[in-house]
């Protein structure tokens, strides 16, 4: 069997939790230039801990920007595709950043904090988003990059609240979905929002970098399992959530990704003219879910074929679903074939694996 370990040089960047990951037996891999834990024990165990109780992820590598000033909203409104002007204080919304051709530069979360507008970006696109915003500046607005002075931990799972009930105020436990609040803790400001990327309930916690290890230890000691990027990927895939570099890239527009709900065509923003035309493009391949027979997973790049063996699309993400116990995938395929129940075939290495088109998400949590 091949050696699984990469012998590449150690990546340049580390989060404030790097030593903690290593001390807690995290298997470190390169992700977007950061040394990150792919797993601590088993990806499936970590995945199931999030589905059944609570797990936490270091997502400090993601970019965190604070936009302030009279023109902060105006600036963001031109950069991000979703409606922002109606956000209540504390409200969070998902949107895309597009270039003038309507291609996706990043997918982001915007929060209207009391004191600023927050933007959370993918680590892999941090530089590109900042450069894009700086290339299209407004007067009376500033950007502060708080990434390296903070940590961000995502605590996810139905029991998340039990884990933090002894050290967060009731106001945090009562946060509505997609709302955030600032909490003063030990003389510093923590920003906490009821958001996540797993399909489970939970919060994302931004705290000063200096308290990162203590926070991780508190979460661990209070019953949350440390989870790595491997489980983060299987969880988000089951939840039908796109990942930049897979379902989203500069050649893909939000409509074909099925994210039209995050595009406010009534406002002016970079890319809106191109998107006006792209919205009506019936030839663009569209994102679908696929569920496969057997146990082999399809992976990014695998061909999707019709019953006659003609290629109709390509897989963008695939794995063995720990919750469904079947291989699942997301792919872009010809629009005519994008019908739930449509039979397809996937070329997985040299084998034709039968599959069907299915709706997204693959998994939805129980309402409580």
């Amino acid at each position, binding site marked *: *069997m091949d050696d699984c370990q990469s012998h590449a040089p150690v990546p340049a960047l580390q989060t404030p939790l790097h030593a903690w990951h290593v001390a807690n037996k995290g298997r470190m891999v390169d992700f977007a230039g950061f040394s990150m834990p792919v797993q601590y024990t088993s990806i499936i165990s970590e995945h199931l801990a999030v589905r059944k109780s609570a797990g936490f992820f270091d997502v400090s590598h993601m970019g965190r920007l604070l936009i302030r000033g009279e023109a902060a909203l105006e600036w963001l409104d031109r950069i991000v595709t979703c409606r922002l002007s109606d956000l209540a204080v504390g409200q969070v919304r998902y949107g895309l950043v597009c270039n003038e051709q309507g291609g996706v530069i990043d997918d982001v979360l915007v929060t209207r904090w009391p004191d600023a507008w927050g933007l959370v970006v993918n680590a892999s696109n941090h530089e590109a988003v900042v450069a894009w915003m700086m290339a299209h500046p407004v007067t009376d607005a500033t950007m502060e990059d708080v990434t390296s002075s903070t940590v961000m931990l995502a605590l996810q799972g139905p029991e998340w609240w039990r884990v933090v009930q002894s050290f967060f105020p009731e106001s945090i436990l009562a946060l509505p979905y997609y709302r955030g609040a600032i909490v003063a803790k030990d003389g510093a400001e923590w920003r906490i929002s009821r958001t996540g990327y797993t399909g489970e309930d939970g919060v994302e916690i931004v705290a000063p970098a200096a308290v990162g290890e203590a926070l991780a230890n508190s979460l661990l000691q209070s019953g949350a399992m440390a989870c790595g990027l491997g489980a983060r990927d299987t969880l988000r895939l089951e939840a039908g959530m796109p990942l930049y570099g897979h379902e989203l890239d500069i050649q893909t527009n939000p409509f074909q990704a099925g994210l039209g709900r995050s595009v406010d065509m009534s406002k002016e923003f970079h890319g809106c003219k191109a998107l006006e035309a792209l919205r009506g493009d019936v030839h663009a391949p569209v994102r679908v879910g696929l569920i496969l027979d057997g*146990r082999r997973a399809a992976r990014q790049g695998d061909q999707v074929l019709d019953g006659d063996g003609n290629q109709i699309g390509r897989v963008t993400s695939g794995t063995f679903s720990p919750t469904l116990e079947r291989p699942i995938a997301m792919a872009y395929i010809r629009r005519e074939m994008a019908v739930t129940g449509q039979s397809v075939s996937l070329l997985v*290495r040299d084998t034709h694996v039968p599959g069907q088109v299915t709706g997204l998400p693959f998994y939805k949590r129980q309402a409580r």
Partner: protein
Amino acid sequence: MNPSDLRYAKTHEWVRADGDECVIGLTRFAVDQLTDVTYIQLPIVGKKVKAGDGLGEIESVKAVSDIYAPVTGEVVAVNADLSRDPGLVSRDPYGAGWLVRLRVEGAVESGHLMDARAYEAQVSETPH
């Protein structure tokens, strides 16, 4: 840790000689590196392989790895339990998690196979 009656390939397969046949599996180190085994592809009975040829594939949540034939021979049996329970290879890699039984062609070329001590030395040198 690695049974001393077995021989080991540097690609992490073990071999147990059994008359003119041998049994092949994956080492504890190999399965611990993989974790989360979801699928194992084994050859069909009757397939002839040379030492170093691909013998099958083992898939985990994150990746697929090739399994290599440590000796030359013909496949006479494969472990049918692994299709419904691939995790067996992780729970009992030297026993119930065996992969393939081969009829060995000619002598077992154990020249390129290591004993347990040499294999353990190789493993501790591998960055992991």
